[in-house]
């Protein structure tokens, strides 16, 4: 049964599904970091997105409103971060941590009344094509629209950063806010926008978890995915296409543990659960060892505040 070609296709599809939140959050954070802002609040923004999406879905019954609302939830909470770091010039790391702590607390508070409520079924696209082609059709068809969006996003992001003028501006602001500012670019505005965009993507990533991947609200349900998304950005050396590869590896690790348990591999379950975290550390070490490469690809002003004296 394991060597059935369709089964392999299904496994790949499930790996891709578990990679979706990572891709969304990492691509959002990548834009934020490219503008020179280090937002460590990914986990907090994701969990806010997860609860906003689920709560709105339960209350309004509209999936559309829920998804948009989750993104707005992410935007709203990232506005706090943007205001603090950009207008009040606070430390990025500390503010990001506060955002995560606050986000987890607020989401649990809002989510208290939504525990145990079953989610709704999210419509999938190309359902009729699901059994047409062996191996390929479970990979290509029968997924939610967020799924397709997530796999297109790295390419869009890449195009945006490399081929568009706004993308160039974002990179310029991240690499040298002083020169960008001297060129007449409003650094604050660019950074605000990038932070809010990152918030929207993290919100969407959270909504995917609570509405599509495991349609229910569980306290703390992001379970460190936000931090793995942050690590993925470093792993990708700030290149959106590589995020895709990284997210697939981590998605694979998550899925493999289920299958290893299913076929009865005698490894304690806790070790398998710890695997993604351990692999993240190992991957980070391997990537960062070459300090020159990291220095070349890191946005030069990452995590540094910019203050223009008028």
């Amino acid at each position, binding site marked *: 049964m394991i060597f059935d070609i369709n089964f392999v296709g299904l496994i790949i599809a499930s790996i891709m599904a578990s990679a979706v939140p990572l891709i969304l959050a990492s691509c959002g954070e990548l834009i934020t970091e490219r503008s020179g802002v280090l937002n*460590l609040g990914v986990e907090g923004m994701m969990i806010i997105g997860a609860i906003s999406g689920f709560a709105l879905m339960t209350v309004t019954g509209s999936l559309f409103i829920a998804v948009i609302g989750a993104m707005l939830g992410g935007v709203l909470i990232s506005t*706090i971060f943007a205001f*603090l770091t950009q207008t*009040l*010039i*606070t*430390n990025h*790391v*500390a*503010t990001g*941590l*506060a*955002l995560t*702590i*606050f*986000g*987890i*607390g*607020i989401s*649990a*508070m809002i989510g*208290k009344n939504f525990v145990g409520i079953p989610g709704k079924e999210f419509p999938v696209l190309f359902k009729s094509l699901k059994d047409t082609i062996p191996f390929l059709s479970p990979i290509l068809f029968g997924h939610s629209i967020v799924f397709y969006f997530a796999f297109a996003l790295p390419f869009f992001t890449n195009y945006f950063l490399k081929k568009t003028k706004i993308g160039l501006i974002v990179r310029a602001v991240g690499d040298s806010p002083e020169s960008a500012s001297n060129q007449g670019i409003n650094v604050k505005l660019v950074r605000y926008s990038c932070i809010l965009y990152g918030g929207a993507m993290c919100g969407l990533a959270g909504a995917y978890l609570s509405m599509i991947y495991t349609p229910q609200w569980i306290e703390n349900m992001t379970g*460190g995915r936000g*931090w793995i998304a*942050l*690590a993925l950005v*470093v792993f990708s050396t700030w290149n959106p296409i590589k995020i895709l590869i990284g997210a697939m590896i981590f998605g694979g690790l998550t899925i493999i543990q289920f299958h290893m348990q299913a076929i009865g591999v005698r490894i*304690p379950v*806790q*070790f398998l*659960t*710890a695997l993604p*975290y*351990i692999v*993240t*550390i190992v991957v*980070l*070490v391997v990537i*960062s*060892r070459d*300090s020159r490469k*990291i220095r070349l690809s890191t946005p030069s002003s990452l995590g540094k505040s910019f203050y223009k*004296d008028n």
Partner: protein
Amino acid sequence: MKLLQKNLVCLWEEEKLIKIVKRNQPSRAIFFLTPVLAIFLTLFAGGLIFYILGFKPFEALKFFFIVPIADMYGLSELLLKATPLCLIAIGLSFCFKSNNWNIGAEGQLTFGAIVSGGVALLFYNQEGFYILPIVILAGAIGGMLYASIPAILKTYFNTNEILVSLMLVYVSKLILDYLVVGPWSNPEGFNFPETRQFSYSARLPLLFEGLRIHAGIFLALAAVVVSWFIFYKTYLGFQMKVSGFSLKTAKYAGYKGKKMIILVFLISGACAGLAGVGEITGPIGQLHREVSPDYGFTAIIVAFLGRLHPVGIIFASLIVAITYLGAETAQIFMQIPKYTGQVFQGMILFFLLASDYLLFFKIKFTGLKK
């Protein structure tokens, strides 16, 4: 009315009424006053949240911040929670002062608890004065070992310490879970996820009968004194301060950067490990699944709120400890969700960071020019 509006716009445009001016030097008075301001702002915002949730704000705040510490038992509980927060925050202040972002104290606490718990279990059927010191030492070493991972990876492999230390938190909790469910679980424990009870010699003595406060508080106080001495009376403290202000300056001055990074991580790991010892050898006396209600993360807030100053950290740990107790009391008496505690903690840090603006900028009221 229109005239007034026009005047105001005029005033605003020429920035005559209110002016924001950069200070030449951060203000020292404000440095210690802003934490107080942040606490008041948090109380205000908290009252607002309670109001939105449909509770009477003053009553809710009373149940949150006053009722839990109104009797001896409450005070003892306050000190019980403040002890690990203070210990960990003292350790973290070494890291934060020197620009090292160790945010995995929770993991170091857990690993310290695992190692000291393991040692305590070795002596489970023995009594003797030598057991407790060994158990405490084991906890400190466990925390140091765990903190050395991000430190070594940072110094020799250029790896981001924030992400590594955080990932290790998840790993440590899973190791603990594996041990208390599997090999270390109490053979007579009906499969509960907990170990045997430690022998009395492996436990920190309780200070008063009927109260849960234990001798661990002396560990925290010792850490306060020692850290104060190191910060302000030794060359190492000076080096840390310089590296915190500017890594370049530290490099020019010829400080051994790598050695210091490892040292501050080891110190903060040891403190977190000791906090872990206190959690398991105090009133509980065994290892179980949840050694710490996120003390390691909350201590980050405590360290900042205390301005990385040992004495400030004592006050900050007491204040933040109330949010733990308050959340419980408010839940019991008013059905306020217990996560409000975490929300308060996040808000304190937000407001503290925000009010730091006043450190660097002055708001000048220049008055109306007639």
